[in-house]
């Protein structure tokens, strides 16, 4: 049977990158002087999971790197080596290489082989370094062995582990690194039992360690095997030493399985009976199930259970009809395999079995005994499992597409509900009392539903912030600065779309702060400051917006310097400009005060891009700085990209939405306030300012109101300043769901998107900055004509 693995690739990619991120996070928070064993184990587990996954999917390059990585980590967590800062560096570098490889498998550029060799060598070096050349890192299980022992391993895996081919392969591979493994029974969905003969020089503890991922050491039975060649008989003896609990666990675990699985178990059973005759010579893998059973009689007496129980139990779960079996005889009739089995010479006490099994009391007790065992057993397994897969139960992975679809549907529901409410508004409130009450309830529920659905897309800011410790660490090292990073309000939630788009601008701001803001330690000490600079990232909610701040306690912006540079570049500046205006110069394209272009910053590409990106998201950037005390950059963003607070205005019978963030005020224009400039361009005098007067009906070629006193003016502020937009009427204020025009059509000049109004019609959302540009261009054209 071949399974197309590629369908699982995406899952692996996602998981691996999560593991990598997790690993990096742990590494960065690791206290080098006194690492917690728990953290080291967590890092090890992350590396191990990546290794396992990559191995399963055939990404051997990743397996190789993680293997070396794991080697060093293993020594660390066993406290054979002491953690050193250079190790952390090496781990981080290895993480980068792995990330590169991961990206390569997803279609990214290939990772430089030299990098891979380099990091492998570095890790090996570190692992070997203090071991005095006793390179135990690379696995050579049988090399340098003092005493080779033959062991028998028996342990039982929880069904979920046993059912996963991947997990089993990983385990066997892990074992194979330590010992020569002769698998007797491979765990599968029906039987989680692993039985194997091991030939090894390692200690029991090491072997158990290899399985420690899924099992506690107590669950693993290791016993000396006399001779690895000796098969069936010795085998049975050994099986007895396996904790009786485990074998029961297996039977009882399988009991609650639905009929489908019971079928599988039945097939298994059949196979068993067929295999049984040959069993004495050839105890193959599948035989494991039975090995236990006949072996049981010797073990069971201690537990005060009759020998006959074992076959009965097998039979019971195998057919899933134990309860229906009227008595011992019927039971055995149903179980040709069992009787067959009982005739096998390998079974110690064949005669005893039928007698006891035919006793109804025995069967009865068995039934009542069983469930309690099952509960106890599954209970413990469950807790074991949660340790392995923490978090897996509390969240699910859903594609953004599905969420967006859900959001769309809820948006539709909201519109339908609004339409209903509108229609119901004309009904007689006394006659239609119940209906109206129902509609009220519906509207409340829809609103709640919409809020909950929207919150699915919300992600905590920590998704963005978590990448910065690494950036800061690397950069500070490169710049010879001491920087401590603080984050505040990581739990502030932001729309996923915004989270993705805010990362680059933030990275830029952080790099800027490190490069230009925070001074080198000597300078800081000279200025009477702590040699260690502080960079603070803060996120918070303010009204309907999210505010992200990047603060540093560095030297602050140099006003004189900025002015000087601006003059050099021929920007119109004067010494009388306010600080605020001076800081805005930084956002001019190509502006940089750095004398030397470094690979960190100084190319002058940046702040303008930051500003543009953030404004593209409907946000704003502000700068505050004070010489000697530091700089603060404040980014204000809307909560989500999907919903917008808008003011709806009517122009020539069409409805347009003006984003409320751009609206300064709206007022009834006074004819005296409108002045013409050079003939046709109109300006409006509002509170001491002259603003360009733009009639939307002209911009969009619609038959709007001509008489200025009949319309209204909305004062808006775009990238390039304020303007007075002339509209026919104000219709109201709504929260609108933003829909893309480009999905099925194309970008429309002056529009940032569309939305669906309460009556089901489409309204276009104004791109205020573009509208102002078009309006001004029109005026210019007219003036030229």
């Amino acid at each position, binding site marked *: 049977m071949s399974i197309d693995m590629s369908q699982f690739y995406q899952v692996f990619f996602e998981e691996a990158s999560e593991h990598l991120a997790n690993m990096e996070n742990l590494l960065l928070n690791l206290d080098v002087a006194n690492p917690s064993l728990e953290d080291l184990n967590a890092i090890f587990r992350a590396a191990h999971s990546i290794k396992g996954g990559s191995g399963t999917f055939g990404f051997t390059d990743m397996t190789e790197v993680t293997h070396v990585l794991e080697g060093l980590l293993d020594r660390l967590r066993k406290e054979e080596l002491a953690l050193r800062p250079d190790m952390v560096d090496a781990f981080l570098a290895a993480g980068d290489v792995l990330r590169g490889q991961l990206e390569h498998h997803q279609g990214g550029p290939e990772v430089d082989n030299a990098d891979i060799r380099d990091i492998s060598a570095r890790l090996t070096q570190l692992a070997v370094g203090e071991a005095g050349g006793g390179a135990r890192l690379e696995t050579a299980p049988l090399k340098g062995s003092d005493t080779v022992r033959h062991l028998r391993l028996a342990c039982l895996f929880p069904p979920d582990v046993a059912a996963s081919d991947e997990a089993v392969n990983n385990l066997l591979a892990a074992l194979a690194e330590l010992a020569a493994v002769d698998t007797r029974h491979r765990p599968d969905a029906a039987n989680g039992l692993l039985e194997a003969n091991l030939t090894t020089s390692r200690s029991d503890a090491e072997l158990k360690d290899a399985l420690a991922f899924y099992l506690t050491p107590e669950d693993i039975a290791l016993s000396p095997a006399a001779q690895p060649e000796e098969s069936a008989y010795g085998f049975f003896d050994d099986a007895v030493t396996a904790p009786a609990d485990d074998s029961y666990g297996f039977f009882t675990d399988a009991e609650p399985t639905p009929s489908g699985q019971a079928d599988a178990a039945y097939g298994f059973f059949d196979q068993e009976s067929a295999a049984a005759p040959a069993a004495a010579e050839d105890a193959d893998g599948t035989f494991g199930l039975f090995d236990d059973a006949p072996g049981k009689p010797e073990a069971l007496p201690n537990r005060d259970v009759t020998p006959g129980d074992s076959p009965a139990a097998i039979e019971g779960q195998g057919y899933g009809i134990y309860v229906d079996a009227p008595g011992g005889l019927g039971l055995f009739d149903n179980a040709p395999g069992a009787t067959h089995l009982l005739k096998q010479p390998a079974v110690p006490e064949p005669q005893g079995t039928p007698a006891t099994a035919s006793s109804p009391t025995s069967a009865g007790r068995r039934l009542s005994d069983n469930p309690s065992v099952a509960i106890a057993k599954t209970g413990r397994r469950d807790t074991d499992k949660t340790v392995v897969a923490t978090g897996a139960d509390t969240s699910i992975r859903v594609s953004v597409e599905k969420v967006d679809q859900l959001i769309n549907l809820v948006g539709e529901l909201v519109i339908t509900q609004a339409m209903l409410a509108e229609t119901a508004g004309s009904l007689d409130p006394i006659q239609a009392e119940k209906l109206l009450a129902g509609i009220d309830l519906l509207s409340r529920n829809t609103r709640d539903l919409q809020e909950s659905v929207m919150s699915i897309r919300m992600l905590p800011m920590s998704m963005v912030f978590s990448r910065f410790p690494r950036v800061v660490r690397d950069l500070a090292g490169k710049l010879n600065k001491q920087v401590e990073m603080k984050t505040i309000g990581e739990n502030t939630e932001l729309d996923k779309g915004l989270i993705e788009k805010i990362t680059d601008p933030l990275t830029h701001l952080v790099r800027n702060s490190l490069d230009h803001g925070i001074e080198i330690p000597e300078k800081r000490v000279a200025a009477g400051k702590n040699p260690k600079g502080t960079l603070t990232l803060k996120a918070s909610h303010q009204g309907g917006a999210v505010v992200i701040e990047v603060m540093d306690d560095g030297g602050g912006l140099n006003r004189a310097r900025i002015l000087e540079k601006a003059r050099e570049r021929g920007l119109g500046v004067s010494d009388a400009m306010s600080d605020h205006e001076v800081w805005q110069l930084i956002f001019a394209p190509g502006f940089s005060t750095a004398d030397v272009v470094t690979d960190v910053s100084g190319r002058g590409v940046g702040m303008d891009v930051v500003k543009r990106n953030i404004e593209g998201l409907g946000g704003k950037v502000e700068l505050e700085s004070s010489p000697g005390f530091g700089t603060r950059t404040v980014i204000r963003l809307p909560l989500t990209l999907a919903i917008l607070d808008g003011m709806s205005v009517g122009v020539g019978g069409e409805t347009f939405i003006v984003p409320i963030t751009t609206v300064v005020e709206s007022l009834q224009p006074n004819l005296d306030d409108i002045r013409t400039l050079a003939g046709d361009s109109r300006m409006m005098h509002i509170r001491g300012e002259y603003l360009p007067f733009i009639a939307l009906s002209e911009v969009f070629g619609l038959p709007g109101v001509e008489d200025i006193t009949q319309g209204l003016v909305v004062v808006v502020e775009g990238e390039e300043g304020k303007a007075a937009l002339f509209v026919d009427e104000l219709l109201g204020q709504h929260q609108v769901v933003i829909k893309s025009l480009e999905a*099925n059509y194309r970008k*429309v*000049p002056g529009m940032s998107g*569309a939305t669906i109004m309460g009556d089901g019609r*489409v309204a*276009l959302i104004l791109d205020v900055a573009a509208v102002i540009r078009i309006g001004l261009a029109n005026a210019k054209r007219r003036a030229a004509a």
Partner: protein
Amino acid sequence: MDIVDSSGVPASGEYLTFTLGKEEYGIDILKVQEIRGYEAVTRIANSPAFIKGVINLRGVIVPIVDLRIKFNLGEPSYDQFTVVIILNIGKRVMGIVVDGVSDVIQLNSDSLHPAPEFGSILDTRYLLGLGTVEERMIIMVDIEQLMTSQEMALVETAAA
């Protein structure tokens, strides 16, 4: 000459026919998502006259093109008989306004005749050919080519 449509598959199969003025046109039925009545559209400023605007099709914003205006086939009127054919082309949804939907016909490439060079508004590039069904001439349009063409201005031009 084998007549093939844009996907390179010989043009045989089912076609939806519709009327524009007095002419009958046919398009690949697999490109048709649904047929609905004409409803008020939201106009889009500064767009060509044949782009009527956009409608809300169950939460999706869909542009509507009036082929009668595009092909210059008389004065378009909008009444309860005016029909919009919603097309699914590539991953896009768009609607065309036509005078009426008439039939679904089966045609194979044998009964398709290459269209002569009309020198008409409708470039032969967008034609699969001319089909004949019971004495009626049907102009078979490669609707995908047409709707994604630059002159329709429905999709961002190649530069985008």
